[in-house]
């Protein structure tokens, strides 16, 4: 099967053993995003740290892609600045629209999500948590786009 491109070992691994899943009690902003087509859901919380970076916590349900993507997001965006996080979000969107080549420095394991770009209906799954982070981060920091 060709699907191995999308379901790479590393993705399945994040799916089966998600990093950082579970909500922290402290938060400045909480958002709840859903994929109305399939019902995937995520609740995501963001809290500014003293150093100006943003702590993130989340809980979610959904398919392997959306779960793995959230786990990867936690690896990449927990305790980074708004600017770093935002540009990672921009980059993953561009990657999934095949507008940019995957950049491992920015996305870490997230570059393994590049296979999702072949399946337009799944792109939303991969982006769900990242869009939620952006939304929450804007609310928590008051920074616009």
């Amino acid at each position, binding site marked *: *099967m060709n699907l191995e491109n*999308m379901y790479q070992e590393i993705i399945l691994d994040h799916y089966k053993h998600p990093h950082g899943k579970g909500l922290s009690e402290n938060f400045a902003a909480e958002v709840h995003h859903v994929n109305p087509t*399939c*019902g995937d859901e995520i609740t995501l919380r963001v809290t500014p740290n003293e150093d100006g970076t943003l702590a993130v916590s989340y809980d979610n*349900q959904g398919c*392997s892609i959306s779960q793995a993507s959230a786990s990867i997001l936690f690896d990449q965006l927990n305790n980074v600045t708004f600017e770093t996080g935002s540009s990672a979000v921009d980059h993953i969107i561009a990657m999934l629209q095949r507008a940019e080549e995957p950049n491992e420095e920015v996305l870490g394991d997230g570059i393994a999500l590049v296979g999702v770009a072949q399946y337009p209906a799944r792109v939303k799954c991969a982006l769900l948590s990242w869009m939620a982070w952006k939304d929450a981060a804007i609310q928590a920091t008051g920074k616009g786009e």
Partner: protein
Amino acid sequence: MTELDVARIRADFPIFNRTVRNDRRLVYLDSGATSQKPRQVLDAERDFYENHNAAVHRGAHQLAEEATDAFEAARATIARFIGAQPDDIVFTKNATEALNLVSYSFLNATLKAARSKPLPIGAERFVLQEGDEIVVTEMEHHANLVPWQELCDKTGAVLRWIGLTDDGRLDLDSIEFTHRTKVVSLTHQSNLLGTVNDVAAVVAKARAVDALVVLDACQSVPHMPVDVSELGVDFIAWSGHKMLGPLGIGCLWGRSELLSAMPPFITGGSMIETVHMESSTFAAPPKRFEAGVPMAAQAVGLAAAVDYLNALGMDKVAAHEHRLTQLALEGLAGIKGVRVIGPTEAIERGSAVSFVVEGLHPHDVGQILDEQGIAVRVGHHCAWPVCRRYNVPATTRATFYIYNDDADVAALVEGIKAAQKFFGVGE
């Protein structure tokens, strides 16, 4: 020959000439979302455009006459299919609009009555008071739920619903209808569970409190013989695209005296009687509800779809689907970790078979099936409350139609096993 000749039927559907993904045979198990279209339907639509195209009911020239004739003949064919009179069939863009047309009739009658504006004779049946009740069921498609929620939000009416039993049936005792119950709207067949509801029982309860009954027939008219003179309901709504017809057309049937009593919904040209700047009066149904240039080519295409189904025989269509459903239910029962959401026996149920696979999300199941050329639908199927009721985030759903056969069912069963293997779940 009492069975459908699937090979011959498939030859009428151009889409089966193509393959999907890595050159796989197309196993189309998503007719519950929309059906494929036979050549005969596409030809009929094209013939309309190539030879008779004009705005119907609007001209006196020959093309306009021919277009109008074709449009009204199509209405008559479609009416006959459900045992109705042509003038009691309203064309809409889809079933969703048809259901909204009914819900907005209540809204519009209520608002006009409150301001003593002219209303058709008999419109009182559509006037709601604060606290009046509207009843739906917990298995409704969003198209037969959200419009009623909206109506309640705008009028102060109260939405109530019939709950579901654990095995996917209506729990008719879960609520009492009262003298405040003005309308009961339910689906004939659940698009997620496959359950075929006991319409007669609901009608009996509704009649006892003098409530109107609306039937969402999206999943019944394409799949079984439906005769409005036997159903006892007041309205039925369905879509053309799920029964071999074109996209962009749906139908509302209503009892003649009720359609006549309803104020218009969408207003504009062709639905009027007279128009002054100050005020207007309206045509009789069905025109009253068909404002603007209508989808005449699509009506002609839908009539061709009806002809196609009639030639097969709706009894045979139902029997064919029943057999495939039975096969599918048996096949799924044989896979460890697979649970059917909805009736597990092919009794009073249609061909929509929803299931969950332990340890696998439906999206992932659907993806692996897709890779094998099997098109199913995954998600909440526009019936989110049903998923909640059965505590699943979503399901995978296969639906069968006239062009499916035993091999398609077998492909589904094997496909699910392949998905389990791919993700390392199951046995």
